[in-house]
């Protein structure tokens, strides 16, 4: 599978972005074992190309919604890594002040609306954010990431219908990693062709190779341009695969080790680095330098989180209600 043209600068930027997410999450696994991070930890390892290739096509005034597997989306969107790591530690310096944790990363400055741990719940909210853009005369769009498990929920269908009926600027980006927790798509859906479902709501819908970040970037650019140009929704399916178990609690009994090993052959970092090396755009030294930078950034984020403070228990009840009126 080949994808379109790429230059050195873009290729290297995409590689560095995926790598920093990979190194961040690998460190999270270690910190989880060391009990610095608790709760659920859903890893994006293997799926990095989807968030990285898509997020590059968005503008600062666009809004982003994601799921509980959203470390990669937050980092690719520009949420500072120290604030994300501090959130994993439950620190007050975390991007949600330690109130959200791994599954509820939020960041108003980058219009990152979370961090939703109810499958499909973000879709109606994406519709509403897009409606606000329309009614307030703003031209930003809304990118809503969700897994293929969400298509079984009623809210998926309700949101597809509303967005198309009201012609709202939403990019519905379905990350099909083939398993809803442990249930394979063909064991939960009578129709496994996901774009067909979306197309039935009268919106453009297609699939892309989610393991090739260049393919993702091309498809996402077309999708985002379509949403911007026509104002209505687009559905894009990324065919991807998660290399790790669903969460740290998951013994991963429902899929063959061979299947996982086969998928790893198309690791998005390997797919891209091979392409860039083959095209003579980067050297091994460039890749090694990117790795050193990623590790250094993660080291700094961990140091920041470790040095962070705890929200005082006296503030337990803060943020149940707003402390000041929004204008």
């Amino acid at each position, binding site marked *: 599978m080949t994808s379109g043209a790429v230059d050195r600068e873009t290729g290297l930027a995409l590689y560095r972005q995926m790598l920093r997410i990979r190194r961040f999450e690998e460190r999270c696994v270690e910190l989880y074992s060391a009990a610095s991070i608790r709760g659920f930890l859903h890893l994006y390892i293997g799926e990095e190309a989807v968030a990285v290739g898509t997020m590059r096509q968005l503008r600062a005034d666009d*809004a982003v919604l994601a799921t509980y597997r959203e470390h990669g989306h937050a980092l690719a969107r520009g949420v500072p890594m120290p604030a994300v790591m501090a959130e994993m530690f439950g620190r007050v310096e*975390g*991007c*949600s*002040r*330690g*109130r*959200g944790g791994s599954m*509820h990363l*939020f*960041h*108003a400055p980058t219009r990152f*609306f*979370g*961090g*939703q741990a*109810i499958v499909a*719940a973000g*879709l*109606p*909210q*994406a*519709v*509403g*954010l*897009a*409606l*606000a*853009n329309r*009614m*307030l005369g703003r031209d930003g769009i809304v990118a809503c990431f969700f897994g293929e498990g969400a298509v079984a929920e*009623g*809210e998926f269908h*309700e*949101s597809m*219908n*509303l967005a198309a*009926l009201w012609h709202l600027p939403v990019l519905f980006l379905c990350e099909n990693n083939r398993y809803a927790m442990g249930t394979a798509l063909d064991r939960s859906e009578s129709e496994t062709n996901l774009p067909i479902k979306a197309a039935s709501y009268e919106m453009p819908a297609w699939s892309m190779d989610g393991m090739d970040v260049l393919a993702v970037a091309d498809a996402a650019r077309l999708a985002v341009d379509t949403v911007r140009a026509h104002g209505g929704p687009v559905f894009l399916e990324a065919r991807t695969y998660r290399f790790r178990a669903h969460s740290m609690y998951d013994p991963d009994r429902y899929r063959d080790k061979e299947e996982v090993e086969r998928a790893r052959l198309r690791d998005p970092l390997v797919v891209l680095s091979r392409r860039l090396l083959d095209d003579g755009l980067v050297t091994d030294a460039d890749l090694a330098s990117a790795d050193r930078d990623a590790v250094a950034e993660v080291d700094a984020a961990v140091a920041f989180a470790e040095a962070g403070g705890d929200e005082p228990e006296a503030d337990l009840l*803060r*943020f*149940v*209600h*707003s*402390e*000041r*009126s*929004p204008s």
Partner: protein
Amino acid sequence: MTEQVTVTYREALRAAIREAMLADDRVFLMGEDVGRYGGSFGVSLGLLEEFGEERIRDTPLSESGFVGAGIGAAMGGLRPIVEVMTVNFALLALDQLVNTAAAIHHMSGGQFSVPLVVRMTSGAGRQLAAQHSHSFENWFAHVPGLRVLSPATAADARGMLAPALADPDPVVLFEHASLYNTSGPAGAGDPVDIDRAVVRRPGQDVTLVTYGGCLAKAVAAAEVLSADGVSAEVVDLRVLRPIDWETVLGSVAKTHRAVVVDEGWHTLSLAAEVSARIAEEAFYDLDAPVRRVCTAEVPIPYARHLERAALPSVERVVEAAEDVVGSG
């Protein structure tokens, strides 16, 4: 106070919506049949013609979808009023209201607010049986992050919407279905204090604590009791979260007896919370145990006599009040 005119509860709601939409372009109404149909209870009749389809927005039958869209629209800078036909249907949107609207401000560390108003009918009395008649106010009043209102008069119907829209956090507003055709005085520009309960009728011997569709029953019971020489004070909670305990406990400190009247089912009802709080904080003020008059533990039946038998009645309130007065 502005000039008072007598209007129906329905007209008061419509005037409040209209006034809010004229005052702020960010306010809009959406829900099932709010536009062409005029609202399933006629509340929004005529508003589509005045404000157009963008702002009086008919939705498909997808409660979770359009309530969730209301949350997104509120986070995006609008001031949505979302109408859900009945609280029974609102259960389809409970996830959005509880897991997102009520929680997102907290779980985002205060970064995102949801200035959303959700209106819905509740309550029985029209022989609509077990899927259109229930009172789940307590389900919503249980949830931190929500404010829950229950206007029982035309004046409250008129005056609660503006402060609800001004609240930076989600507000759920219950309109008891038996109230739409009732009338009362209501003036423009009389906002209700949505932190406070109100004493609807002063009295000395027993406090009747109630809200919503049961207020009229409590007031009627107070009239009957008065004829028997018992002076009942009627407290209309009207704000079901946060409950104004100062007013409730202040009344009990004066009368030393309390009957809580609530159309919810008896077990784990709002009345249960009110009773527990009185027992915890006003135990030594009491001359008699607190009594509750609630709905019988049965899905609301269709047949008129059975429905009536299930619900709190004036007679049951009088009986309970006489019982606590007699025992003290």
